[in-house]
C-alpha cells in the first residue's frame, strides 16, 4: 500500500516526459532548439502574472471536464461526451443570463444551475440508455456531442446577434468576477472565479467518492460490477447517477467562458476542452487532486502553444497532448503488467503476502 501512491504518480510523469522528448524531436526537425522553445513556454505560461492568469483561465474548463470524466471513470463509465455537455451548459447559462429577469442575487445561481442542469440532462440520455438497454456509453456520448452541436446550430441561429455566431450579452448580475479582483498579480487575464467553483467541486468530489456511501458504491461498481451487484448496489441507478453528476460537472465547465470571460455564448467556444477532459482525467489518474495538477499542466500547455507560435507552429501543443495520451495509456498498461509479474504469488509460498 505504501508503494502504490508513488508508482501511480510515476507512470503519468514518465508519459509526460516521453511526450516532451518526442515533441523536442519535432521542434528540432523544424530547426529550432527544443530547450529554448520549452523554456519560452514555461517562462511565459507560468512566469508572468498575465501568463499565469491565462494558464488558469485555460485550466478552468479542463478542470471541470477532467472531474466529469474522472467521476464517470470511477463508476466504470467512459464519458466521451463532456464536450457536448459543456457546450450545452454554456448555451443554457447564456440563455438564462440574457433572457431571464430576476433580482441580482438570484440570477447568477440560476445561470449556474442551468449550466449544470443542461449538462446533467444531456449526459443522462447516455446514462439511461446504458442502464435500461445496456447501450455502450462511448458511442452514445460521441453521438450526443454531434447532436448537441447540430441542435445549437439550428436553434442558436435564431438567437445569434446579426452577422455573428454569438448570443447577446448576459445581464451584469449573471457575470462572474475576474480573479484579478482578488489577486491583482493576474492583472488583465481572463481567469475568473469559476476556477474557485471548480476547486471547491474537486474537494467535494474527493469527499463524495472516498467518504460517502454512494461514492463508495460507485467505486465498487467501477472496480468490480459483479461484486457491486452481489453487495446490493442498484447498478442502473448508480450508473444513471454517475452520468448525471458527470454531466453537471462538464456543463458547469461552460460557465468560465460564458459567464466569466466573454459574457455571451459563442459557437464552438469549447474548442475541444471537453475532449481534453479525457486526457486530464487520464493523467490525473481519476483522483481529484491528480486532476487538479493535470488540468494545470494542460492549461499551461494550451496557453504556452500560443506564445511559442513565433518559433514553431502552435499545433506543437496539440501533438504533445495527443502524445501524452498515447504514452500514458501505454505506460499504464505496461506498468500494470510489470506490477502483476513482480507481485509475490500468495498461493505458492503458502503464506499471506
Amino acid at each position, binding site marked *: 500500500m505504501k508503494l502504490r501512491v508513488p508508482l501511480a504518480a510515476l507512470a503519468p510523469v514518465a508519459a509526460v516526459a516521453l511526450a516532451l522528448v518526442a515533441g523536442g524531436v519535432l521542434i528540432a526537425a523544424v530547426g529550432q532548439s527544443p530547450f529554448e522553445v520549452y523554456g519560452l513556454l514555461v517562462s511565459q505560461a507560468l512566469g508572468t502574472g498575465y501568463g499565469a492568469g491565462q494558464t488558469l483561465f485555460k485550466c478552468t474548463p479542463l478542470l471541470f471536464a477532467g472531474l466529469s470524466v474522472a467521476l464517470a471513470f470511477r463508476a466504470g463509465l467512459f464519458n466521451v461526451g463532456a464536450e457536448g455537455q459543456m457546450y450545452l451548459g454554456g448555451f443554457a447559462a447564456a440563455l438564462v443570463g440574457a433572457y431571464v429577469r430576476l433580482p441580482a442575487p438570484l440570477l447568477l445561481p440560476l445561470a449556474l444551475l442551468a449550466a449544470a442542469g443542461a449538462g446533467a440532462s444531456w449526459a443522462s440520455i447516455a446514462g439511461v440508455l446504458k442502464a435500461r438497454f445496456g447501450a455502450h456509453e*462511448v*458511442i452514445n456520448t460521441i453521438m*450526443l456531442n454531434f447532436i448537441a452541436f*447540430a441542435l445549437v446550430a439550428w436553434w442558436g441561429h435564431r438567437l445569434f446577434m446579426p452577422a455573428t455566431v454569438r448570443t447577446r450579452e448576459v445581464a451584469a448580475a449573471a457575470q462572474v468576477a475576474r480573479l484579478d479582483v482578488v489577486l491583482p498579480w493576474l492583472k488583465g487575464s481572463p481567469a475568473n472565479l469559476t476556477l474557485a467553483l471548480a476547486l471547491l467541486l474537486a474537494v467535494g468530489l474527493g469527499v463524495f467518492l472516498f467518504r460517502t456511501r454512494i461514492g463508495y458504491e460507485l467505486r465498487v461498481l467501477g472496480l468490480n460490477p459483479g461484486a457491486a451487484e452481489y453487495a446490493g448496489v442498484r447498478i442502473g441507478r448508480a450508473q444513471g447517477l454517475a452520468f448525471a453528476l458527470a454531466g453537471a460537472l462538464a456543463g458547469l465547465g461552460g460557465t468560465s467562458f460564458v459567464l466569466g470571460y466573454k459574457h455571451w455564448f459563442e459557437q464552438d467556444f469549447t474548442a475541444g476542452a471537453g*475532449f481534453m477532459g479525457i486526457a486530464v482525467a487520464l493523467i490525473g489518474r481519476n483522483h481529484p487532486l491528480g486532476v487538479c495538477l493535470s488540468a494545470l499542466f494542460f492549461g499551461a500547455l494550451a496557453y504556452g502553444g500560443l506564445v511559442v507560435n513565433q518559433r514553431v507552429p502552435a*499545433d*506543437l501543443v496539440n*501533438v504533445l*497532448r495527443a502524445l501524452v495520451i498515447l504514452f500514458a*495509456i501505454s505506460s499504464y498498461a505496461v506498468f500494470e503488467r510489470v506490477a502483476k509479474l513482480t507481485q509475490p504469488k500468495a498461493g505458492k509460498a503458502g503464506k499471506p503476502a
Partner: protein
Amino acid sequence: MSLLAVLLFVAATLRITVPYALAAAGASLGERGGVVCLGLEGFMLNSALAYVLGAWYLHDPWLALGCAVLAGMLTAGLHALVTVAFRADQITSGIGINLLAAGLTRFVLVTVFHSSSNSPRVAGLPELPIGPLAHLPALGPLLETPLVLLAVALVPLSTWLVFRTPFGLRLRATGELPQASAALGLSVGGLRTAGVLLCGALSGLAGAWLASEQHCFTDGMTGGRGYIAIAAMIVGKWHPAGAATACLLFGATEAAQIALQGSAFPSALLQALPYAVTMLALAGFIGRATPPRALGTPYDPEGT
C-alpha cells in the same frame, strides 16, 4: 422532380458515400478482430495530407494514392502498437490518434506550405477512359472516378474476406473469443494487427478521395466523417456490406441537407439524423447491434 434532378441527387449521394463506405468497411475489419477503431478520423486525415504531399513532391496522383494508403496503414500501425502490443485502452488510443492527426497535419501544413488553412492545389486522380458511358447525365462523371469503382469493388471484397475466407473466420474468432484462437495456435496479436492495418489501408483510400476531390488539403478536412463511418458500421452491425448500406442512408441524408439548404425546412436538424439513428440502433430499437464479444478487451495470454 425531374429525372435529371433525381439522377443528380443519386450522384451527389454516391459521391458523399464513397469515403464513408471505405472507412466503415475498414472499421468492420478492424473491429471484427476485436480492436475498437475510433481512430478512423485520424487515419483519414493523415492519409489526406499524405496524398497531397505525394502529389506535390512526386507529381503523380497514383503514387500519391500509394502514399495515402501507406499513411493510413502507418497511423493504424501506431494504434495497433498501442492497443495490441502494449494492450492499452483501445477507445482512448483512438481518441489520442484523432488528436494527434489533427495536430500533426496542421503542424506539417504550416511547416511545409506556410498556411494554417490549406495546401496549394494538387492534381486529383485522373479520370478513367470509359468511353460513351462518360456522357451519361449526372452519373457519367461519377463512373469516370477510379475511387468510386474501387469503393464499389472493395465493399463486397471485404465482406467476402470476413465471411468466406479462412483469414476472415480466424479474424472473427479472435474478435469473439481470442483464447480459442490462441488455443488453435493462431497469433491473436498478428490477426488483430492485420485487421487494424486493413482498416488503415481502406481509411487511407477514403482520405485520398477527400484530398483528390478537393485537389488540396484543408485543415480538419475529414470533418467528423470518421465518426459517421463508425456510426454506420454499428448500424450495419459490424458487416462491411451492412455498413456500406448505412453509409448510403447517411450519404442521402447529407445530400438532402445540402439540397434543402436555404429552404424553410430545418435542414440543420437533418445533420443530427445519422447520430440519432445510431443511438436507436445501439439501444436495440432497429434490430440489436451486437458488437464482437471481445471487442475492446486487450488479449492477455497469461490471463484466464
